[in-house]
């Protein structure tokens, strides 16, 4: 039951790698078409995710678990926004667009803005120079926080230049090594998937 999908993965993955090397416009057109198919599958996967979201909250409502009225809010919003979006569209000037700007935009921004408070609290309580490495991290972080904003130049004219050096030399070196490591990891896992060595994406076998 699983060997068919594994062979499909191999064929599709190999085709995409081969198409990278073929500049002919017909090959690139095939490449583009295959990628469009992938975006269609992704759209259906999102529908699947929404069904899962529905089931989770519907169960909470049915069983009257703690916080179940809030699940009503979620499901109501999901149904209303989806229905309006499918019926009227989501472009500028539509009801969904106005709901998005009024509700989602401030909520999403504020959720992230909350992190500023928690970062400050966590930095005060947990950011400790317990050893050489932690001290290096702490000192660099403080130098960056002060040196990269306007007040840093006020304190010392050389601050911006020094923080630029920190970014251009030690930071660059470490991030380059991480980028190479990540690249090697991505290539390795990609090849393992294409060659059928890694099959975890297919789920548990029965």
């Amino acid at each position, binding site marked *: 039951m699983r060997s068919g999908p594994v062979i499909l993965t191999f064929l*599709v993955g190999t085709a995409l790698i081969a198409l990278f090397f073929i500049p002919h416009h017909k090959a690139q057109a095939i490449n583009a078409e295959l990628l469009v198919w992938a975006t269609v599958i992704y759209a259906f996967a999102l529908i699947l995710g929404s069904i899962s979201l529905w089931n989770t909250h519907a169960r909470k409502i049915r069983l009257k678990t703690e916080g179940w009225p809030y699940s009503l809010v979620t499901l109501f919003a999901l149904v209303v926004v989806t229905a309006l979006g499918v019926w009227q569209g989501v472009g500028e000037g539509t009801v969904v667009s106005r709901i998005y700007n009024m509700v989602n935009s401030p909520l999403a921004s504020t959720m*992230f803005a909350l992190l500023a408070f928690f970062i400050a609290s966590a930095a005060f309580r947990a950011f400790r120079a317990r050893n050489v490495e932690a001290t290096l*991290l702490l000192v660099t972080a403080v130098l960056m926080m002060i040196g990269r904003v306007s007040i840093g130049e006020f304190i010392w004219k050389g601050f911006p230049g020094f923080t630029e050096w920190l970014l251009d030399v030690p930071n660059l070196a470490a991030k380059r090594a991480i980028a190479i490591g990540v690249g090697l990891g991505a290539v390795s896992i990609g090849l393992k998937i294409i060659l059928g060595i890694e099959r975890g994406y297919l789920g548990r076998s029965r």
Partner: protein
Amino acid sequence: MSVVETWIAAFLTLCIFSFLYRDNPFYRFAEHLFVGVAAGYLLAVQYQDVIVPNVWMPLVAGPHTPRSIFLALIPAVLGVLMLARVWERMAGPARWAIAFYVGIYSGIAVPGYLQGQIFAQLSDAVKPFAPGWGAINSALVLLGLLTVLAYFFFSAPHRGIHGAGARIGTWFLMVAFGASFGYTVMARVSLLISRVQFLLRDWLHLIPTT
């Protein structure tokens, strides 16, 4: 935004900020509303911008050609197979859709990361040092690259020269993570500034708009 919309946005902003005092019904209401609206919006966009032009139009609304129908049928069938995962016993057929999707992005990743990341970065690492005092910086960058790679090499124990190199690599990593932490603080504070600007300017009109 109109006055009503601004007041609603401000109310929801304050609902989220109320979590700073403690968890409360206003926060939980706003949180659940956010999940519902975000999921609904995403679904609507995918329907309008992906499913309608790539599946509905070629298969149903037209214009049709045998070629366009064939090219639309394959992703439609794969998409429906993906949806079939809702039923436990249909997990098998759904694997075909997952296999296709994973194959596509694995095939893109291999040459993409090789060319765009590995070769490009190695090529820039293996070049003559900058002239004059810049040679010190170039040497430090090369030292940092080699020692951090030594740190991430876990197939051999970190002992002797390898261990010393890995230790130096750790120092470079700590400087890099310190820089990242400083910038992360900057990013979060920027978002907070934007929300407070909205409350003080657009809602309470305590700050001029220009």
